[in-house]
């Protein structure tokens, strides 16, 4: 009889031990699976990040080049009395620079006189009276640019304050 009780006790102990081991095994297996899944997910995220980086990684250099393009445009606009061929050459160089930027995903923002101010694309730098409705764009002072649909520079614009009342 005693012997049987002892055996039963042993069985109970072994079962508890087995339970503990099974639970531990589950925990470990779960941890291992999670670690593997984490790594796979990390790799996927990293690939996405890298793709984003390759796309937008040159944003800073493009911004710098846009500043050069601004100066170029101002330069061409200020040039008078010059040999037409020289002028044509200057414009071709400017086009070259614009094409290079376009090839790398840069696009100029279109701004039309009289369109309503949109802070998602425009940055207001001043106001003036004009024939256009109050709050609409009168003049683009500096061009804005998109890089793969992200506004990397808003176009700087002057807005209309409406017509002068006494006019």
């Amino acid at each position, binding site marked *: 009889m005693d012997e049987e009780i002892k055996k039963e006790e042993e069985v109970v102990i072994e079962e508890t031990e087995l339970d503990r081991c099974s639970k531990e095994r589950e925990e470990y297996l779960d*941890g291992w699976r999670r*670690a593997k899944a*984490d790594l796979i997910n*990390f790799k996927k995220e990293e690939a996405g990040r890298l793709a984003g980086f390759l796309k*937008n990684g040159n944003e800073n250099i493009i911004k710098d080049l846009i*500043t050069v393009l*601004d*100066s170029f445009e*101002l*330069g061409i606009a*200020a040039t008078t009395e010059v040999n037409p061929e020289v002028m044509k050459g200057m414009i071709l160089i400017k086009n070259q620079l614009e094409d290079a930027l376009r090839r790398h995903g840069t696009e100029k923002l279109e701004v039309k006189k009289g369109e*309503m*101010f949109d*802070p*998602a694309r*425009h*940055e*207001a*730098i*001043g*106001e003036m009276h004009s024939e256009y409705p*109050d*709050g609409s764009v009168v003049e683009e*002072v*500096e061009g804005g640019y998109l890089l793969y649909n*992200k*506004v990397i520079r*808003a176009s*700087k614009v002057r*807005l209309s304050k409406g017509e002068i009342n006494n006019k």
Partner: protein
Amino acid sequence: MAKILGIDLGTTNSAMSVMDGGEPTVLENQEGNRTTPSIVAMSKTNERLSGLLAKRQAVVNPKNTIFSVKRLIGRKFSDVEVQRDSKWLPYEIKESASGGVDVKMGDRWYTPEEISSMILQKLKADAEAKLGEKIDEVVITVPAYFDDSERQATKNAGEIAGFKVRRIINEPTAAAFAYGANKMKNEKIAVYDFGGGTFDISVLEIGYDAESKEQTVEVRATGGDTHLGGDDLDKRVIDYLVSEYKKQEGIDVSKDPLATQRLKEAAERAKHELSTSLETEINIPYITSDATGPKHFLIKLTRAKLEDLVRDLIDRSIELVKEAVTAQAPKGAGMKLEDINEILLVGGQTRMPAIQEAVKNLFGKEPHKGINPDEVVAMGASIQAGILQGDVKDILLLDVTPLSLSIETMGGVATPMIQKNTTMPTAKTQVFSTAADNQTSVEIHIGQGERPMMADNKTLARFILDGIPPSPRGMPQVEVTFDIDANGILSVSAKDKASGKSQSVKIEASTSLNKEEIERLKQEAAAHAAEDEKRRIIIEIKNQAESMIYVSEKGVRDAGEKVPAELKESIEKKIATLKEVKEKDDADAIKNATQDLSAELQKIGEIMYKDNKETPAAGEPKDAGEEQGTQ
């Protein structure tokens, strides 16, 4: 489980971060930027704008564009600070019914809490869009000097924005968390925060209660100037440039908005550039024009000049630091400067070398500056969020290798197999070859340390793999595998791919170096870095020379009678010269002799090709096998 957002709600800019995979990650906003201007506006078309969009219309809508609302939140209208600010803020404020402040935007009056909540709402929406999940909980940071009412008002702002505010924590504490302070015990930390519009200094004391096993962070003193910031520095630079231009050209460009804008951008860029270079050129073609035609702007700005322009502002910040640390309570912490264990730099302006230098000189020790100073507070807030969520509690502690584990290769060089700080368990396999012809055994010498020469590192084990079939050098492929298990036990095995023979060794103590020993080895590596590098280069050059000698001897041998006697003699002479200089440590001489020999050797190739052309073999790559042999 939904993530808890950490938000640094700043006076000028805000930032947000979440814990991702156990690490704080800064989130970009909808516009793709990592910081968001803390600005809200009611546009002329009665549209509510927040962040960058609000900033873009500020010039034409100053009365309805609310910025710096953090200066007003939770304060009484009668506060000296509020009175002072009301004089320069372009929007309207008035005393509220409860004695607080009300702000006018559009045709309505708002509390500063409501305005702040609009910024928080934008951050919430942008974070949700970025993460693709709903976010309900938040940790928001506030300056250490904020009183109960300012903290409560900030909390209210969070709740109005739809968050459950899990905690309001101090900005310097958040910064300290980002630098790992949540694992520190008994340290005194000074946090120097030079932001866009404000300067704060905080002295923290981190304690540890052994009984409750809890860390305590006590703010011992705060100080600063709410009207000193990076914007003041920018203004100094712009004013200087305008006055210089006036001197040069007699034109005041500050009247022209586009010229001012271009100048402002150029000045900011110059300031950033001068953090890493000593001189920069501010070049703005066609900035303006007068009766004589277009005018350009070209001025050189040196780092010394920049520092000269802002020296008094830096000095002022340093005086405030001194006061906060050394003055007796309640003005300061009543400590000595040398009592401070760690100094943390926060705020974009602390990238300026002159500021880092001034802080270093004051405390006599290097400040921490590894983390992006614009993002460090937000990152700390998300670490606090992670602690609340139970994320920052390493369930599975994974150790790292404290020092690199290397194998000795030709010339006594220690070639790292597992770099230091690699998370364990890990394994790495690499194929090596023999250094001499008919070499039938290789010695695998395993070492630990950062020095490039094996002799300077600690040897862990050596064993010999023999039974490699005799073959020319470089031909046998010996695959060596380093494997460290989670307990830091390193197993190294080497296997000859041709014979299949292998040998291995198990090293139990690869990571059991004590802290002092690791530190000593690291310091030695740092101290000898320069001379070690020189030695490594010499060995590399010598190895190249040896390869060249081997290739030349083989080339002459293989070409046999095809090589004219004179050329053969000349090559042999050059081989002898190289062998002689190789024994000395003159890198240039060895390099020259190697190049000489290489040039001479090419003549064999020319002759062989010529021969091939003379006996056309229908373009058969007859020499392919030979070429492979020399690799």
